[in-house]
C-alpha cells in the first residue's frame, strides 16, 4: 500500500500542474483550475493520513534504479518513517488550507489559474523532497521548490520589487545549494553512493568510520548545512526571505513560513546521523545567531508581513539550534507546530491585507496588479530602508481592527499566544520548551560552555519573540484606528478565507502533540560520531519531555510508556536522565518567565502606552539604529566592496544600499563591471587581437605576393616551361 499511496500523493498535484501546462501550450485555460488544484491537494492529504498506520518500526527504502553507469548506480526511491509521514501531513494539510484560502484571496486576479497551478507544482516538489530516500532526490526536490518559490514570489512580476525579490531569492538560495552540492560530492567521492539508507547507504558507511576520519565528515556536514542556510534563511543568507514577502500572502504562508523554508530543518534532521560534534556546533550557533538577529530586527519593523518574515527566520534559527544541539525530536516538533501557527499568522495577515487592499482594488479587479504597481510609484510616504511599505501592509495604518474582523483577530491571537510560548494550552509552548530543555540538558550533561551560551541565546530570543508578536497584535487589532479612511473600508473576509484560519487555529492547540509524545513513533537516528552518553540519542528530549509534561492535555497517552522505557538503562544513563529532568524544569520556568516578561513589556509599550516606544528608541538611538538597519550588514559589506572598487564607490555610496540586500545584485554588478569587463577586454583585445593580427600578416604577405600574378597567361607559361626545363636539366646534370 505504501508505494501506491505515495505515488498518488505525488502525482495528484503534479497532474494538476500538468493539465495547466499542457492546456497553456495550446493557449487554453482550464476553467476551474482552483478547484482542480484544491481537490488534488485534498486527495494527497487523505492519502497522507492513510499512511500513518503504514509506518513500521524498521523502515526500508523503496527504491528503483534511476541511473546505472556501470560501476556506479544511482537509485531513486521513497523512505517512509514517522518523520516522513508527519512532514507529509503537515505539508498537505497546510497546502490544502492555503489552497482554500487562496480561492478567496486571489479572486479576480488576471492570472488566477496560474497561481493554483504553481501552488500544485510547489506541493509536488515539496512532497517529493520529503519522501526521497537519497540525497540526489532530496536535492532535486530542493531545487524544484526553489523554482516554485521563484515563480510565486515573482507572481506579480510587473512590480519591480517582486521581480527583484524573486531573482534574489533564487540566487541566494542557490549559493547555499552549491555548498550543499559540494558536500554531496564529498560524500559521493568517499562512499560512491548518494543513497542514505539501507546496507549500502551513507549512514551505514558513516557508522563504520574511525573517529580519526571524521574531520572531512564535519566539513561535508557543514557544506550540506549550507544548503539549509540558504533555504531556511539562516544568517548570513537570510536577506531573501523578507524580500520574498513581495509574493502573494498565501504563498508567504505556505512556502515562506510553513513548508519550504522548513525544508532546511528537515534536511539537517535527515542528515542527523552524519553530523559530528564540530558540524553540530556550527549548526547550533548559526541557528542561535539567526534566532537572535532576526528577532531583534523584527521588533522595529512596521510592515506586518516583514515582522512575520523575520519572526519566521528567528523560529527557523530555533529549530536549527535544536537539531544542532542534538534535540532532534524537539526541532522537528517545533517545525510542525510552527508550520501551523505561522501559516495561520500569515493567512491572518493576508486577511487583514485583503480587507485593506479591497479599497484599492475594488473599482477594477482586472487591473489589480497594475494598481499594485501604481501604489508603489505614488505612495512613497513610508520608507523602510530604501524599500517602501505598501500602505495596506503598514501597521501604522491599522489599529482597532478587532471589532471589524473578529474571527481574524481571534485566530491570530491564538497563533500569537502559541508562538510566544504561553504555557500549557498552546502547542508552541511545548515545542519551544522542549528545545530549551534539550539544549540546557545537553549543556549540563556535557558541562559545555557552548551549550550554555546557546541556551541563553534561545531564551533571549524567546522573550523577544513574545514582545514583537504582541506588538503586532496590539498595533493591528487594538487601540484606535490610525487611518480612518482605510479603517472604514475594512471588512471581515469571506468564508473561504476564514475557514482555513479556524482550522489552523484549532491545530495551534496541542492536538498535534500526540504523535510527538509517542516515544515509539519518533526516534532520533543514532549519531555515531557524537561522543555523548549512549542514552542521549535514545532521546533526552522525548523521554524527559514526556516524563514531565506528557500528562498535559492531549498528550496524555504516552507518559507511562516513557517511564517504562527508561528502566533498563544503566546507572550512568540514570544520571543523565536526572540531569535532563532538572534541565527541563529549569528551562520551563525560565521560558515562562521570559515569555511573560515579553508580553508584559509589549502591553506596556503598545497597549497601555505607559512607555513611549519612540522615547526608548531615542534614548537608545544606537541600538535602535542597529536594529532598524538590520545590523548594518549593508554598511559593513559596503566598506569591503568599496575597498575593492574604489572607483565605483561614489556611485554605490549614494544609494543606501544594503550589502546583503544587494549581495547577489552587488556581486553580480561588481563581477560584471570589473571582472567581466576585464575578461571582455581580454577577450576582445588579446585573444581576438591575435587572430586579427594573423589575418593582417597574411593579408600583407598576399599583397606582396600577388604582384607576381600578372594576369598574362603567356608569362605563366614561360615560367612553367622554364621551370620544367630547369628541373629536367638539374636532374640530368646531377
Amino acid at each position, binding site marked *: 500500500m505504501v508505494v501506491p499511496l505515495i505515488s498518488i500523493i505525488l502525482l495528484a498535484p503534479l497532474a494538476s500542474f500538468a493539465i495547466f501546462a499542457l492546456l497553456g501550450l495550446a493557449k487554453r485555460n482550464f476553467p476551474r483550475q482552483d478547484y482542480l488544484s484544491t481537490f488534488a491537494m485534498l486527495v494527497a492529504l487523505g492519502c497522507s493520513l492513510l499512511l500513518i498506520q503504514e509506518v513500521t518500526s524498521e523502515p526500508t527504502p523503496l527504491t528503483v534504479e534511476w541511473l546505472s553507469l556501470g560501476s556506479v548506480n544511482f537509485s531513486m526511491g521513497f523512505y517512509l518513517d514517522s518523520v516522513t509521514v508527519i512532514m507529509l501531513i503537515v505539508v498537505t494539510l497546510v497546502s490544502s488550507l492555503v489552497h482554500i484560502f487562496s480561492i478567496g484571496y486571489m479572486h479576480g486576479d488576471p492570472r488566477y489559474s496560474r497561481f493554483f497551478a504553481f501552488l500544485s507544482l510547489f506541493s509536488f516538489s515539496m512532497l517529493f523532497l520529503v519522501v526521497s530516500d537519497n540525497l540526489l532526490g532530496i536535492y532535486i526536490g530542493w531545487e524544484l521548490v526553489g523554482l516554485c518559490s521563484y515563480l510565486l514570489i515573482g507572481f506579480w512580476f510587473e512590480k519591480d520589487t517582486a521581480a527583484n525579490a524573486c531573482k534574489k531569492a533564487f540566487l541566494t538560495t542557490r549559493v547555499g545549494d552549491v555548498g550543499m552540492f559540494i558536500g554531496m560530492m564529498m560524500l559521493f567521492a568517499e562512499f560512491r553512493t548518494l543513497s542514505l539508507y539501507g546496507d549500502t547507504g551513507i549512514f551505514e558507511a558513516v557508522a563504520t568510520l574511525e573517529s580519526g576520519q571524521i574531520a572531512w565528515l564535519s566539513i561535508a556536514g557543514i557544506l550540506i548545512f549550507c544548503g539549509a542556510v540558504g533555504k531556511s534563511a539562516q544568517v548570513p543568507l537570510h536577506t531573501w526571505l523578507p524580500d520574498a514577502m513581495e509574493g502573494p500572502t498565501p504563498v508567504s504562508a505556505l512556502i515562506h513560513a510553513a513548508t519550504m523554508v522548513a525544508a532546511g530543518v528537515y534536511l539537517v534532521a535527515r542528515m542527523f546521523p552524519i553530523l559530528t560534534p564540530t558540524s553540530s556546533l556550527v549548526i547550533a550557533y548559526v541557528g542561535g545567531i539567526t534566532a537572535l538577529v532576526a528577532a531583534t530586527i523584527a521588533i522595529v519593523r512596521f510592515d506586518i508581513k516583514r515582522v512575520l518574515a523575520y519572526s519566521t527566520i528567528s523560529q527557523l534559527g530555533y529549530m536549527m539550534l535544536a537539531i544542532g544541539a542534538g534535540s532532534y525530536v524537539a526541532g522537528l516538533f517545533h517545525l510542525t507546530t510552527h508550520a501551523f501557527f505561522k501559516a495561520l499568522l500569515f493567512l491572518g495577515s493576508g486577511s487583514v491585507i485583503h480587507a485593506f487592499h479591497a479599497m484599492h482594488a475594488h473599482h477594477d479587479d482586472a487591473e489589480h496588479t497594475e494598481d499594485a504597481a501604481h501604489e508603489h510609484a505614488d505612495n512613497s510616504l513610508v520608507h523602510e530602508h530604501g524599500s517602501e511599505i505598501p500602505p495596506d501592509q503598514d501597521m501604522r495604518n491599522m489599529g482597532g481592527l478587532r471589532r471589524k474582523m473578529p474571527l481574524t483577530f481571534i485566530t491570530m491571537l491564538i497563533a500569537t499566544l502559541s508562538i510566544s510560548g504561553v504555557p500549557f494550552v498552546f502547542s508552541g509552548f511545548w515545542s519551544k520548551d522542549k528545545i530549551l530543555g534539550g539544549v540546557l540538558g545537553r549543556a549540563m550533561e556535557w558541562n559545555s560552555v557552548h551549550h550554555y551560551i546557546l541556551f541563553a541565546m534561545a531564551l533571549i530570543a524567546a522573550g523577544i519573540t513574545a514582545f514583537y508578536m504582541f506588538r503586532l497584535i496590539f498595533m493591528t487589532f487594538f487601540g484606535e484606528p490610525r487611518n480612518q479612511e482605510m479603517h472604514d473600508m475594512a471588512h471581515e473576509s469571506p468564508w473561504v478565507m476564514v475557514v482555513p484560519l479556524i482550522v489552523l487555529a484549532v491545530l495551534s492547540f496541542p492536538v498535534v502533540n500526540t504523535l510527538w509524545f509517542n516515544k515509539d513513533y519518533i526516534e532520533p537516528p543514532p549519531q555515531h560520531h557524537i561522543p555523548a552518553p549512549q542514552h542521549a540519542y535514545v532521546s533526552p528530549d522525548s523521554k524527559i519531555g514526556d516524563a514531565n509534561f506528557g500528562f498535559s492535555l492531549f498528550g496524555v497517552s504516552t507518559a507511562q510508556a516513557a517511564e517504562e522505557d527508561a528502566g533498563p538503562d544503566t546507572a550512568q544513563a540514570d544520571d543523565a536522565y536526572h540531569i535532563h529532568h532538572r534541565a527541563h524544569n529549569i528551562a520551563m520556568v525560565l521560558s515562562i518567565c521570559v515569555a511573560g516578561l515579553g508580553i508584559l513589556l509589549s502591553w506596556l509599550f503598545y497597549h497601555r502606552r505607559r512607555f513611549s516606544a519612540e522615547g526608548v528608541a531615542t534614548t537608545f538611538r544606537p541600538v535602535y539604529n542597529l536594529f532598524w538597519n538590520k545590523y548594518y550588514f549593508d554598511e559593513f559589506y559596503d566598506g569591503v566592496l568599496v575597498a575593492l572598487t574604489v572607483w565605483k564607490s561614489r556611485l554605490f555610496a549614494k544609494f543606501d544600499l544594503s550589502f546583503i540586500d544587494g549581495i547577489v545584485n552587488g556581486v553580480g554588478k561588481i563581477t560584471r563591471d570589473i571582472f567581466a569587463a576585464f575578461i571582455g577586454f581580454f577577450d576582445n583585445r588579446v585573444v581576438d587581437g591575435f587572430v586579427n593580427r594573423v589575418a593582417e600578416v597574411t593579408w600583407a604577405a598576399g599583397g606582396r605576393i600577388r604582384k607576381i*600574378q*600578372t*594576369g*598574362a597567361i*603567356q608569362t605563366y607559361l614561360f615560367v612553367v*616551361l622554364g621551370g620544367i626545363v630547369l628541373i629536367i636539366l638539374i636532374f640530368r646534370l646531377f
Partner: protein
Amino acid sequence: MSLQHYLVISSILFSLGIFAVLTRKNAISILMGIELILNSCNLNFVAFSRFVTPAETIVGSEVFRFDGQIIAIFGIVLAAAEAAVFLAIILAIYREFGSIRPDEVDTLKG
C-alpha cells in the same frame, strides 16, 4: 623508319607548338600552336603503339596493334572539343575587350 624517326618529328612539332604558344600575340595563333602540340602527341601515341606495344592482339591470323590508335582518336576528339570551346571563349573575349591579344586580357592581374 625506326621509332626514333617518328619521335624526332614529333618532338620538333612539339617544340614548334610551344614556340607558337609562347611568342604569338594572337589568340588564334596560340590555338594553332596548341593544335601542333596535340598532333605531336597523337603521332607519338600511334608510333609507340606500332613499335612498342608488347602484347599484340591476335584475332585469327591478323595482327592488330591498336590501343595507341584509339587513344589518338580520343585525342582528336578532345582537340575538336577544345578548339570549339577555345574559339567560343575567344569570341566572348573579343566582344568584351575588343581584342584577342592575350597580354591585353589581364583581368586576373593581382
